[in-house]
């Protein structure tokens, strides 16, 4: 609780920095617009202004500063512009509208969640297999670890197109990408968790002559929970990135990735930023939700 104030100060500083950065980023555009509108700017011609450093322009035209926070297509939109766009496209639009961020967010979220569920389920199964079977451990585990160092997201465009060519479209291809991106972190984290009980605890079960299944249910699975949740948080974030990147290559019309791409085609910076923040909010909400579930589960188990 004692970190509330420092966090607020840091966030406020970041927002302040953002406003400050918007001034030099946008001042050229603002002055060009002002010149076209017939206003007095120094220096008067665009060619001359291009010669000057942005800071000189800001100092010579202090009156232009408020306008740098209110452009329609700024290079860097000000925080309140992004917030207004976010509010406008969520609360201000019917959620079935193509202009509603809730609609686009849901398109991405549904693929994320489906893929995450598949990837996590398979990941846990493989982890159990690896812990129970020595030959699986020795064959598969090194590759699972190596996979963590590879940008496997590069497969995404291919998966979309290949699945499209065999007639699979819509949510499934994106979910496949989300699934394999969350799969490997869950396998690696879960194996670590299932192996976390120490020798004494395992020996105790051996003195009870417990079966492998009993050892799994009564010791290994409960002991793995903290590790599982840690990798689930990494996995869900990776899933979301997967779903967003999965929307890029086919020029999808719906989803947060599609909003990013469309925004960058048409120079709609405010739209890009609001899609980016929607994705960030989604990621934060998903990770936060998992954190909440983690706390409940661990408290229920009596370990936290």
């Amino acid at each position, binding site marked *: 609780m*004692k*970190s509330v*104030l*420092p*966090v*607020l*100060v*840091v*966030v406020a500083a*970041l927002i302040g920095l953002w406003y400050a950065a918007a001034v030099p980023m946008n001042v050229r555009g603002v002055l060009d617009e002002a010149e076209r509108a017939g206003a007095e700017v120094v220096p008067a011609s665009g060619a001359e202004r291009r010669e000057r450093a942005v800071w000189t322009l800001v100092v010579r035209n202090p009156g232009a500063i408020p306008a740098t926070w209110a452009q329609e297509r700024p*290079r860097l939109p000000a925080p309140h512009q992004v917030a207004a766009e976010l509010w406008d496209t969520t609360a201000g639009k019917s959620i079935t509208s193509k202009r509603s961020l809730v609609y686009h967010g849901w398109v991405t979220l549904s693929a994320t969640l489906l893929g995450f569920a598949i990837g996590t389920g398979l990941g846990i199964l493989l982890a159990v297999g690896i812990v129970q079977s*020595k*030959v699986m*451990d*020795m*064959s*598969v*585990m*090194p*590759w699972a670890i*190596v996979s*963590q*160092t*590879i*940008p496997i*997201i*590069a*497969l995404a*465009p*291919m998966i*979309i*197109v*290949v699945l499209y*060519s*065999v007639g699979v479209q819509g949510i499934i291809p994106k979910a496949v990408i989300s699934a394999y991106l969350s799969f490997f972190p869950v396998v690696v984290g879960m194996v670590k968790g299932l192996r976390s009980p120490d020798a004494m605890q395992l020996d105790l079960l051996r003195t009870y002559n417990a079966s492998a299944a009993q050892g799994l249910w009564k010791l290994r699975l409960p002991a793995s929970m903290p590790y599982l949740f840690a990798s689930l*948080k990494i996995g869900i*974030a990776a899933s*979301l*990135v997967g779903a*967003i*990147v999965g929307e*890029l*290559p086919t020029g999808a019309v719906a989803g*947060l990735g599609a909003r*990013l*791409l469309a*925004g*960058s085609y048409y*120079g709609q*910076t405010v739209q*890009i*930023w609001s*899609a*980016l923040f929607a*994705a*960030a909010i989604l*990621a*934060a909400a998903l*990770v936060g939700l998992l954190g909440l579930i983690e706390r409940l589960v661990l408290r229920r188990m009596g370990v936290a």
Partner: protein
Amino acid sequence: MMLVALALVLWGLGWWLNLRIAEGPHAQSRAARLAVPLIFGAVVLAVWELLVRGLQVPLVILPAPSLIAARVAGSLPILWADFLQTFVKGALTGYVIGCTAAILTAVLVDRSDFLRRGVLPVGNFVAALPIVGTAPILVMWFGFDWQSKAAVVVAMVFFPVLVNTVAGLRETTAMQRDLMRTYAASYWQEFFKLRLPAAMPFIFNGLKIATTLALVGAIVAEFFGSPTLGMGFRISASVGQLSLDMVWAEIVVAALAGTVFYGLVALVEKAVTFWHPSQRG
């Protein structure tokens, strides 16, 4: 059908062989630990090859490994140019700038307890966000060439390295700090002789996470616009032309680059943090 049957037989054979080694008396030896995954990998490749040929899977769905290998061998100049553009110029530049900036920021933040308590939660929060989404913005600002890719990489690696370094610099015990006090050590003496070495395992943890992020950032950023060069560009262009062998060839290069990059950082880590329990093995 023969080939498919052969694939199944080969799969069984490989599994049986690995089972023999894993359950055998030398399972813990270095050779066995190396052999088993390699046999597994080789069998997967062979089965892939046989199934693609046996079932006559079209090229636009899944090319055979032999075809991918031939494509790699036949396109070395292109692959090399793409590698230079994406990895060396984009990823590596961004990695060096981002990690350096993050570590320097962490050193500054660490001087103030107030700042540290504010930056840690915010940094952890930001590190979990889909930062790769900043790619379209940064492409707009820095242009299509590698500079924008390096900028995306900087944004992606900054926070994980920052958070790990800040946490690592706190990783000294009260006793170790008291000892430095009894020597009347100055701030920078304590920093260089105690806190920085103690933080190294954490810093390298961040640096290792950042290697993969750097490559991901550089490749994905090219999906938002690039010159007609680069691994991400080649992947999306080749996907469009349905030449999947080229896509796979680029993925092979990306996998190698990622693994080697990570491996090199891990090697440096081993040399620097040889004393840490996790490295003494």
